[in-house]
């Protein structure tokens, strides 16, 4: 049976790759895509989601959410994702319209429709999920799971202490992490292990379809940068979270207590993971520590092949 999911995202190059995976797999029933401001502004992330779905020939509701974090000004990352959010790749203008409901009402609607089975895959700042939890507190008991790409048990990327998605809206992350909904955190400590090498990207490029071309050509320019940092290749953050929902056996997780720092001077948005259990607080998050890279990369390749060789 297909797993009913909502993908909440801010495309974003790696969001786009994750969406291409979701559109190609037979394991997921994508009930809706909800968009949030993050990598670029809401107008762009929303339009990008429409473009990507249409481009892949996938019919799905796309609902717009928050244009800024709950209490803070928006921080974006054009320096990574380009002005449009999708790097240099030009996609045709969308002909489809946005769903008439906003992201929060769409998520709630699907939670009801899916009868406690809905799984949310959150690939951007957690603003939409937090607002949904605030507006519809009873949804907590109606969700099956939230898989979050965000945070880190080790180092950050946007700052030394914080990963970008959590840094952008730490208050939203706090609301989501304290909600009691089962959460899996796929953070930088594990997405750095879900990397694509030059060989992987060359192989994907050889599939000779446009989504594969997008994957290869957006990631290849980053190989040098990550090699200098001693990574094995380009880390695929959002695809790792997507893959973990498609095939739960990919991840090794531990159930631990995680707090979100919202007040620090130099630690805004740090996911404080109680690895040794020193706080004595109730574990609230399945924290991912490892991913089977071979299985992950093979899953990605298999899905990209579906767009034609």
């Amino acid at each position, binding site marked *: 049976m297909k797993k009913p999911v909502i993908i909440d995202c801010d495309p974003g190059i790696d969001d786009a790759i994750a969406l291409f995976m979701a559109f190609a797999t037979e394991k997921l029933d994508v009930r809706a895509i909800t968009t949030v401001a993050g990598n670029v502004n809401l107008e762009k992330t929303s339009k990008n989601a429409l473009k990507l779905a249409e481009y892949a020939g996938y019919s799905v509701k796309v609902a717009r959410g928050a244009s800024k974090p709950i209490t803070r000004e928006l921080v974006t990352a054009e320096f990574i994702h380009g002005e449009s959010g999708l790097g240099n790749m030009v996609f045709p203008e969308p002909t489809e319209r946005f769903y008439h409901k906003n992201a929060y009402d769409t998520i709630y609607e699907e939670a009801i429709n899916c009868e406690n089975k809905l799984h949310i895959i959150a690939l951007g700042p957690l603003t939409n999920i937090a607002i949904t939890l605030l507006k519809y507190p009873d949804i907590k008991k109606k969700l099956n799971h939230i898989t979050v790409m965000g945070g880190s048990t*080790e180092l950050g990327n946007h700052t*030394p202490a914080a990963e970008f998605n959590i840094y952008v809206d730490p208050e939203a992350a706090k609301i989501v992490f304290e909600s009691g909904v089962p959460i899996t955190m796929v953070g930088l400590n594990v997405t750095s292990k879900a990397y694509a090498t030059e060989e992987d990207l060359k192989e994907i490029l050889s599939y000779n379809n446009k989504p594969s071309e997008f994957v290869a050509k957006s990631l290849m320019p980053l190989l040098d940068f990550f090699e200098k940092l001693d990574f094995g290749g380009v880390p695929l953050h959002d695809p790792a979270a997507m893959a973990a929902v498609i095939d739960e056996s990919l991840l090794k997780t531990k159930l631990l207590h995680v707090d*979100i*720092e919202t007040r*620090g*001077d130099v630690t805004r948005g*740090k996911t404080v993971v109680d690895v*040794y259990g020193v706080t004595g607080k109730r574990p609230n998050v399945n924290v991912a520590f490892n991913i089977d890279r071979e299985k992950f990369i093979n899953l990605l390749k298999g899905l990209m092949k579906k767009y034609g060789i």
Partner: protein
Amino acid sequence: MKRKPVIIDCDPGHDDAIALLVAFASEKLNVKAVTTVAGNQTIEKTFNNALKVLSFAGINTIVSKGASKPLLRDLITAPEVHGESGLDGPDLPTPTLKPSDKNAVETIIEIVNESEEKIILIPTGPLTNIATVLLSAPELKTKIERIVLMGGSMIGGNWTPAAEFNIVVDPEAANIVFNSGIPLTMCGLDVTHKAQIYREEIEEIRNIGNKVAIMVAELLDFYGKFYERFGFKGFPLHDPVAVAYVIDSTLITTKPCHVDIETRGEFTSGCTVVDYYDVLKKSKNVDVALDIDRERFIKMLYDAIKKYN
């Protein structure tokens, strides 16, 4: 061969006691004084413990009592690790060594001032005394060769999930020391958790047979109880790592990084935020210790203890 002039500022504490024994046994060091600070236990206890250990080992040196509480906060102690006395385990006689009538800050200032060579400070407790020295005698900065401290962590704390004990006890003092401009080596949990002693090695020490060796083995018997819950193979010898680095820097790998101290976070107070990937492009104020040759480190410990025959 010229000995390096050092002052050890500590809060004995089991691992502080072992650090003192290693330092005084070394032909590479000239330990000019031992100053004590409140931390692992109250100031009366850490001061008395320093006197006890030094007296028992037949060491004659200047011992001064320092701060009884952090600069701004109330004191936190660690009886869970070090027991009610701060040095539970061996039964040590009343000290015979007479303490200095000057306090720790006066002693450090006097020695640094009067020395022809620059002094290396080795703090193995909260940084309260060192910060007070820098506040009251900022002109001394140029006469301090380097501060090699045990404290902090790049990845994960021990007292809280985000912070190591010495820094979380007095984050404001750490902030002053880390921003002083004095060359600084941080021997944090990243390296001290790799500097573990295994049970069979504790037996090796006991078998050396002299009274200091037996005391060290008994200290480690008690100290090890706390670390069983961390799931380590052995027990981390935190404070001796800082002394070992000054004796032989080739034991330890370091990387220059910018490090900030979090003083305001809700969950991250005392976190040493290490910019490993240089995302902030700020000046590198700390040499962060990341790895240690454990075998050689343990051999250094054996050799030091044999000198007390």
